[in-house]
């Protein structure tokens, strides 16, 4: 579904991603882990089409199309969803209006009829139950005055409503207490299916106790230094990132020789 080859990217001339290779198939759940500043969030935002990154080399293929050539809204309509690490507040625009505008933009793109108010409300009510949100949430402005946990839940609600093909969750677990974490994990697990790929970008192993990934990648200094199964996350939890980086350096040195 998503094939990233030798991706290099910079912000203001500073190289953040230094050759990423990644292959994600439908139905899989990938976890991308790594220390602070390793480039995890850059990768996530770049895939969603955020401006301000210069891609200096490499390619990203998404369902046979050049993802990097697509506008952010095109990517979204083609099924790429990013759950933001810091969801944006939009004063004056209610959650209901926001989601309806978003959903109908995507439906229109796929030649589906736009949902009317009744159908939309019906759909939304079901999904809101999933993430434990009550009705009053609909009339509140997007993320405005939301607690950290509410913002994250709102991202998961959007995920559930928009039903993307590829969901990238950027540190969705950060700042959550254990109950909220479980709730969100349930929401995400509920979204797993053979048609959909999920990428979890996370700093901690904690989330992976509830969502078991198929593949775990370790990102360090803009490169994937190790990939493995779910057990890799546990090793990282116990031993930190140092040893993976050391191992990678040693391997590289050996190759050069």
């Amino acid at each position, binding site marked *: 579904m998503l094939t990233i080859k030798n991706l290099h990217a910079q912000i203001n001339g500073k190289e953040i991603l230094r050759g990423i290779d990644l292959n994600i198939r439908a139905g899989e759940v990938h976890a991308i882990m790594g220390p602070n500043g390793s480039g995890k969030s850059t990768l996530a935002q770049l895939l969603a089409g955020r401006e301000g990154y210069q891609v200096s080399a490499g390619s990203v293929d998404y369902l046979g199309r050049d993802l990097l050539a697509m506008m952010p809204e095109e990517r979204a309509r083609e099924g790429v969803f990013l759950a933001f690490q810091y969801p944006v507040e939009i004063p*004056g625009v209610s959650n209901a209006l926001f989601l309806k505008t*978003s959903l109908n933009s995507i439906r229109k793109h796929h030649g589906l009829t736009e949902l009317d108010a009744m159908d939309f409300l019906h759909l939304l009510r079901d999904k809101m139950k999933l993430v434990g949100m009550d009705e009053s949430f609909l009339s509140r402005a997007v993320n405005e005055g939301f607690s950290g946990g509410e913002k994250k839940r709102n991202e998961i609600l959007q995920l559930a409503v928009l039903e993307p093909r590829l969901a990238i969750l950027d540190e969705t677990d950060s700042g959550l207490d254990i109950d909220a974490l479980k709730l969100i994990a349930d929401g995400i697990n509920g979204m797993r299916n053979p048609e959909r790929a999920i990428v979890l970008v996370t700093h901690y192993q904690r989330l992976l106790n509830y969502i078991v990934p198929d593949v775990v990648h370790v990102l360090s200094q803009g490169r994937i230094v190790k990939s493995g199964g779910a057990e890799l996350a546990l090793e990282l939890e116990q031993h930190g990132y140092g040893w993976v980086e050391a191992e990678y350096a040693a391997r590289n040195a050996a190759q050069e020789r």
Partner: protein
Amino acid sequence: MNLQQDSRQNIEPEHVPLPGHDVPWVVRARQSAFERFAAHGFPTRREEEWKYTDVSAIGKRASLKPAPPDPTSDAAALILFRDSGHLMVFVDGHYSGELSAAGELPAGVRLASLADMLNEAADLPEAFFDQLHEHTIFAALNNAFATGGAVLNLAPGTVLDAPVYLLFIASGQGAAIYPRNIVIAGEGASATVIEHYLGVIDAHNFTDVVTQISLGAGAQLQHCKLVQEGSGAFHVAGIHAEQAADSRFVSHSFVLGGRLTRNDITSSLNEPGCLCTLNGLYLLDGKQHVDHHTRIDHIAPSGISREYYRGIMNGESRGVFNGKLLVHPGAVKTDAHQANHNLLLSRQACVDTKPQLEILADDVKCTHGATVGQLNDDSLFYLRSRGVDAALARSLLIYGFANDIIEKVGVPDLRARIRHLVLERLPQGGQIKVML
């Protein structure tokens, strides 16, 4: 600028038939107000209060002579809420009994036409025509020529649930319109008043309106004003409130139409425990010029004031905001906050803003903020990452920016109406409208 002798001859109050022309005090009050206006003339940009607004075009292009009543005018089609509320319609500043529908009023509530009261020599208006109430020279001009308007008098404890809806229609004669409204809320009384100015023509007609508000202890008034004048119209207005202990005054000012609009909105928190909220939104295009001058006087302790004004400037328009906040000696425990935010959307549009604090008491909490800028890039990206195209995302953010102010209006019908008016002005507003 003093008035030229010849133009003066033409418009002196004694030469124009006006309500109360048989009542000695009315005639005296009009004459002396006119003298004050004639001596001073229109303000110039050299005066600090008019630094950003040039009103000389009013004198050049519009007539100052009050429009005569026109019984043939058919303005009925413009009425917003026919079924709910207490409707009074004024055509070119003259009360139209036929178009109005004041409905049932609870005991203790009086809603009358000012012209009738002046003709009857009622005592009440006299106190409101004195010089102390003249905040600007335009108020003097209004004193000289006021033709009509509403007088709402609420006895202590009376509660008026449905809004009083005052519709002022500029019908097309191009003559000047001088409405004068008076709202008196006795102790603990409460009401909502809507002033709606609607221009159906593009002529350079001039409206000069004054609304005076007096709130007794614990009284509550929500005042909403919507300016939708014609594209050539000049609109100059004063809304002036006096607040007694624990009263609450909420003012909303929306300006969507008109060539030049100047609103002076003031409130004086004369006794302890008052709450005053001033909200405003201006959405401008073309060569529109809108100037809000607000002033909140904290005279007594423990007053709270909140002020939120927003402007959206497109085309070659200019938005001016001057928010004065005065905390007088002794007005301790004042809690005041003021914010003016502006979106500049085009190359030729401009913004002048001056939030101003003058504080003469020490135990106070006063803050203000003002910004001028564009739509937030993060918000645009967030929307686009959810599949919304850039143009629609932009409209949606502008709508959100405006809606923050619209939401504060406590009259659902009016709120909805203003929302629609705003959406009509946005490029992708139609798409948003169907989703509301």
